[in-house]
């Protein structure tokens, strides 16, 4: 196990360095002059030139990269030319917000999704199976902003009106308390939940048809033990892969949900920074999200090994 773990860890560092270089170059490939974007639409050419010089954009690309990496290693991701504040400070302020939202919605999606998948698979083509798979189809295809706005209307305007309350049941936007978290988490979970439910169902159906399950049943094990102890564990491998990917996606990809609910997370920070061509901020956010993604994948590898000893020994 230790060897497996150290081998996995060994790949993490070069991956992060590789990613950092790709990010750095990619950011510079975004068309549009960052200095002009920051200077504002009424800016004089002299002002734009001064900002370009201050951002170090007149330096060769490699000089710029080494300066960025030298800082990044020490935890200094530079200063946002737009706000004049350190990038790392802003990312650290938003990271917990994004992690809270991503984790809450992933837990919600996993618990409900896996349960729905198991029940569906153990009674294939039953009413519950059909109903939950239709629900999953709706969940996958529903646009996030629409679901978000509907929830908002329901809990902030309609239900309080029907109940004659003076204030909204749940605050429509913003962050700060658990009440703020409910609607964004449900909205964000809808899609992942559907994917996880469908994945669990098909994977379970496949496993349940295998010989060892027939053997388990033949030796007289209770159905519950067959499903949960024998089938589920083998069926979970692809589900965990999806989970890891979903977590990475949720870290940086919750942009729509974050925008609808004005949830101040990393995704929105990234989109805003791209539109302002705020290079240091874009680099910083992508680096952090990519590292998160890599670590989530590492966690998936570890969980594989915990669940399936065959992986550990190979």
């Amino acid at each position, binding site marked *: 196990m230790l060897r497996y773990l150290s081998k996995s860890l060994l790949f993490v560092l070069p991956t992060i360095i590789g990613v950092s270089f790709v990010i750095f170059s990619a950011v510079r490939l975004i068309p549009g002059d960052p200095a002009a974007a920051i200077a504002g639409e009424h800016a004089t050419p002299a002002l734009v030139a001064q900002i370009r010089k201050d951002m170090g954009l007149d330096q060769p690309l490699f000089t710029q990269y080494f300066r960025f990496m030298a800082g990044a290693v020490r935890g200094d991701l530079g200063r946002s030319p737009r706000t004049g504040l350190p990038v790392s400070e802003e990312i650290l302020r938003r990271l917990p917000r994004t992690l*809270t939202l991503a984790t809450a919605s992933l837990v919600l999606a996993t618990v409900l999704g896996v349960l729905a998948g198991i029940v569906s698979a153990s009674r294939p083509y039953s009413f519950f199976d059909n109903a939950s798979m239709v629900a999953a189809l709706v969940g996958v295809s529903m646009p996030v902003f629409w679901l978000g706005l509907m929830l908002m209307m329901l809990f902030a305007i309609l239900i309080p009106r029907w109940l004659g309350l003076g204030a909204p049941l749940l605050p429509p936007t913003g962050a700060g308390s658990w009440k703020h978290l409910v609607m964004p988490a449900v909205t964000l979970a809808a899609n992942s939940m559907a994917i996880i439910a469908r994945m669990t169902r098909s994977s379970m159906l496949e496993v349940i048809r295998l010989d060892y399950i027939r053997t388990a049943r033949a030796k007289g094990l209770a159905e519950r033990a067959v499903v949960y102890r024998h089938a589920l564990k083998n069926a979970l491998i692809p589900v965990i892969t999806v989970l890891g990917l979903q977590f990475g996606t949720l870290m940086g990809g919750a942009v729509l949900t974050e925008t609808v609910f*004005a949830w101040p997370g990393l995704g929105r920070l990234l989109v805003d920074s791209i539109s302002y061509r705020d290079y240091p901020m874009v680099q910083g956010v992508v680096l952090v999200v990519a590292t998160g993604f890599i670590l989530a994948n590492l966690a998936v590898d570890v969980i594989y090994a915990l669940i399936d000893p065959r992986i550990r020994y190979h």
Partner: protein
Amino acid sequence: MGNRRVRGLLLALAVVFLVVAVVAGCAPKTPAPAPTTPAQPPAPPPPPKPKVLTIASGTDIERLDPHLSTASPTFSVLSHIFETLFFMSPTGEVKPELAETFKVEPEGNVYTITLRKGVKFSDGTPFDSHAVKVNLERVLNVENKAAYRSLINTVTDIRIIDSHTIQLVTERPFGPMLSHLSHSGLAIISPKALAEGPDYLARNPVGTGPFVLKEWKQGESVTLAKRADYWRTPAALDEVVFKVVKEDGARLIEVESGTSDIAVRVPPSEVERLQKNPNLVIDRTVGLRTIYVYFNVTKPPFDDVRVRQAFNYAVDKDAIVNHLLLGAARVSDAPIAPAVFGYAQQTAYKRNVEKAKALLQEAGYGSGLKVTFHHPTGRYVQDARIADAIRAQLAEVGVTLELVTMEWPLYLEAIRKPLAENQVSMALLGWGCVTMDADYALYDLFHSAQWAPSFNLGFYKNERVDRLLHDARNTADTTKRLAYYREAQQLLWADAPWLFLHSEVQLTALRKDVKGFMVHPTERLMAHSADK
């Protein structure tokens, strides 16, 4: 073995929950209620609930330093913290604010300004001549990258006469001086804070205004707290919160549910529905931003005035305003909006397909004309759809427009190329005349000294117009200035270097109980004397 695997799985789950717990612990918490003790003295009456006005705004501020800021959402917030020497009223009159009086000396290029006494910055520093001098000098220094340096770059000397009198000396008499000094980009910062340097200023806005910064959570909200020692009557509100809600629908739910008191940028399609809501009022303020299509007048076909006029006749501005913008705009009848000083109304080009065709025929394009048309998307209200409407309407007079749609930063770069490299024939653009003085729009957009990469992007040049704009800028005599601008606008209107479109109207939804709130034509939201 099986048990161990189950344990492993449980361990993994435990880790996930631990992460949730830790992360949830990082989020700000509301303090737990204190345990009640039995023998407590009777509680004093609860203090009155603080009056908080919450504004659901569409955009976060850029930064806290007014000299380096560029956009109106930033100035909306900062104008509560900082003040300027003069204040531009919503009807375009310049009124003293931190200044008390001003006088133009007989030589015409010396402005003597007496300053208000007894004003203090929120850090206790007194406001005086020294404060004004260091602020203007900071803006004038190119290295400081002040965004609105060009507003006062005609100033050659700043003289302190006494503790509360200051003189500004310009190269020549400079007509728009006072309106320029009313711009929020020239707000006065505490000299003590200035001395601390840019890092300090990026976090600590110290001004003379009725509010101070309580907290800025980037991308989330800015909270301002009232100053009890404000030099005028302190604000009635205890706090003003600018909450960043980007999504239109969410902003409306905020104000409809009463979570916010005000929502900006109401989509025109929602106005009818919101007007039926007894708790809401819709404010309509004609802004200063004029939307237009400029022509590159140095190249065919737009080097011919008849083609430019034909385009103006071919496009139905009323239809764009009524159907695409649902009435939330005003058809242009001058190159600048009505609130701007110097505005002179002209007769709008009404749609006349026959006349347009005849003009094109005369210019030698009777058999048709093909032109590329650059436009941004997502920058102005319905910009891409407006461009498409223009394309459809010009098709009716035999003009084929090929649309080139671009994202804003890229667009700005493409259209601001100097003449030799400039490939643009016609392009959609907007200009907010934020100083509310015609000089800022007409001189910057039509004077031949301002050719791209400055903002005369169509390379327009008319010697008479140049002369008039130059004279209007270089005199302090208001009557003369108005006359110059009137003539210049008549010439521009006939010369049609633009396809004149419309000025945007700002739609703001307010809860009924909000009083005294002002939506300024400069797009600034002013809660200074608001109450609820």
